[in-house]
């Protein structure tokens, strides 16, 4: 079982790869809309990537009102 920190780290790496950000440039407390310059639809794309990676189902509502990686990681962690 992953720890929350591990999950967060994996999400940061996946997001950096998917949105072509420099590896290591993203941080847990970052606002992903702002740091990555993405819109709400692109955030949903990220969800699909996370589902494949973690082998979980992550309904759209899990990102409602979430804008930082840490909270997103908590939502993922709860479903692992």
């Amino acid at each position, binding site marked *: 079982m992953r720890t929350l920190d591990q999950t967060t780290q994996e999400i940061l790496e996946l997001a950096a790869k998917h949105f072509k950000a420099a590896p290591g440039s993203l941080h847990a407390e970052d606002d992903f809309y702002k740091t990555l310059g993405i819109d709400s639809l692109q955030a949903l794309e990220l969800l699909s990537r996370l589902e494949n990676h973690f082998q979980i189902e992550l309904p*759209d509502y899990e990102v*409602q*009102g979430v804008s930082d990686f840490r909270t997103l990681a908590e939502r993922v962690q709860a479903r692992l």
Partner: protein
Amino acid sequence: MLDLSKYSSIGEAVRDALETWSRDVCLYESDRGEEKQRITYREFKQKALPLAKWLQDAGFQGGDRASIIMTNQSKWLISAYAMFYCGGTLVPLDYKLKPEEQWTLLKHSGASVLITEYPIWRQLSASPARSSVVNITTVLVTEAPANADLSRAIRWESAQGTGQPAFVPRNRQDLACIVYSSGTGGTPKGCMMTHENYLEQCIALTSLYPFWPGVNYLSILPTNHAIDFMVGFFGPFTCGAAVVHLRTLRPEFVREAFAKYQITYVSLVPLVLKNLQKGLQARFDELPPGKRRIFERLRNINKAFTKRRPILPLSRLLLKQVHAAFGGKLEAIIVGGAFTEPEVLQFFYDLGIPVANGYGLTEAGTAVTVNDLHPFRADTVGKPLPGMEVRILNPDAERIGQVSVRSKTVMAGYLNEPELTAQTIVDGWLMTGDMGRFDSNGHLQLFGRKKNMIVTEEGKNVYAEDVEQAFQGLPVKEYCVFAANYIWPSRSMVGEQLVLVIHLEYGQSLTDELRREIAARNNRLINYKRVRGIVLYDDDFPLTASLKIIRVALAERLRKLDRDHAISTI
């Protein structure tokens, strides 16, 4: 379609529709690409009436209010119809709002019943704001897991009365819905929409963009939004058409749905339309040079032939692969909720995909003008719909003035806000706050806003006053939030942004620490509500006797600053 001029209410019209097309499918519901159910008009009735009976047994009466906070799905529409059957007034709320915002609006609306989904209820019931809302006496929750703590709510699935409910008739002037156009922080703007508003809007819209049995409408915009309520529920249902729900907005499933359900119409906000354009353009760019040349040639032929009007069969033949990706039956993309850039509209039209671009606002019963495609004009928002009187108030030398509207579709007023209503509807004319002019062909062109607000590409109305609360207690002398275009009218509907105007204390400077504090507070706002720039102002703000900022006067003073120099990024 049903002759809606003969009906008095939404409930009455849908009741007849359920009998008229009883064997046809009215709803498809998919989840992540897998179809979970399809419901005929008869089955829809069989699902709705026991709920209506249950509501009546629970004391719900004609004129009572019920709120729905749900994502787009069959139970949204079933619940709405059950409530209309009982003669109730619907309060559709945005499921994307924060729980405390939803409670604020629930309280303001005076609803006694709330119908929602379990994941939403989980957050709503845990919110401290719940305790201050006493008007909600019944909560129905859909799809709750078997052992879930429902926190005094009742399972929607078990709300089944036995026996026939009594149909409660309503008059055309009775309230059908209270639709919040914005204002969760300052003044909630609850538009009181009558049954007549919806009946007349539906007649007007379907005269240009008809539905018929066999039409599949893809419902993506939230159903609480006036557009999806009309074209994703009332419009298709009164014409025997079907609505497709996906339970997700992820691009890959949306793309798949077009082909799978051979979608006829879809409504999108500009942001999604632009996203689609980007995806298509990337695919065109990847074509090998030879194929690319052929594609360009075919697109040019299509452009030449469709200059005066769309010729869908020809476009589908010429640009077969593009149309196949959209299912091959797409009649038009309806775009609304915010202003769309002409280049985006033109991109789709050149591919033979008409975009029904228009202009509207909740207060006017959704659409006021729509492009009739004869010919397609990307540079305007079309002509007034049948039954809409539109005039330009106090036009300037360039004939630009405030757009005002008179029609049977204009709301009755704002709930509990007689003063605001009197300012907004003057002698029967709705003051839209938008600036526009008519061209020589009778097409409306828009040139910015008079109001201190922005509309995002996602179709969200954001009022500057609502955003200000996030900065309460900011360690500066004074601050105020403005729409940049309100200070510096730009005659444009694109690139709208909010700015935070700050007056620092004597001797104070905009340190990195202060910037960080502003950024942190800003980030607590939901992303589309955030301010995008800071304006430093080194004079006292004009105040009323009760120490409220006189925004108009402050904006006037700020206007003297050079916009580009004044705004620094946050």
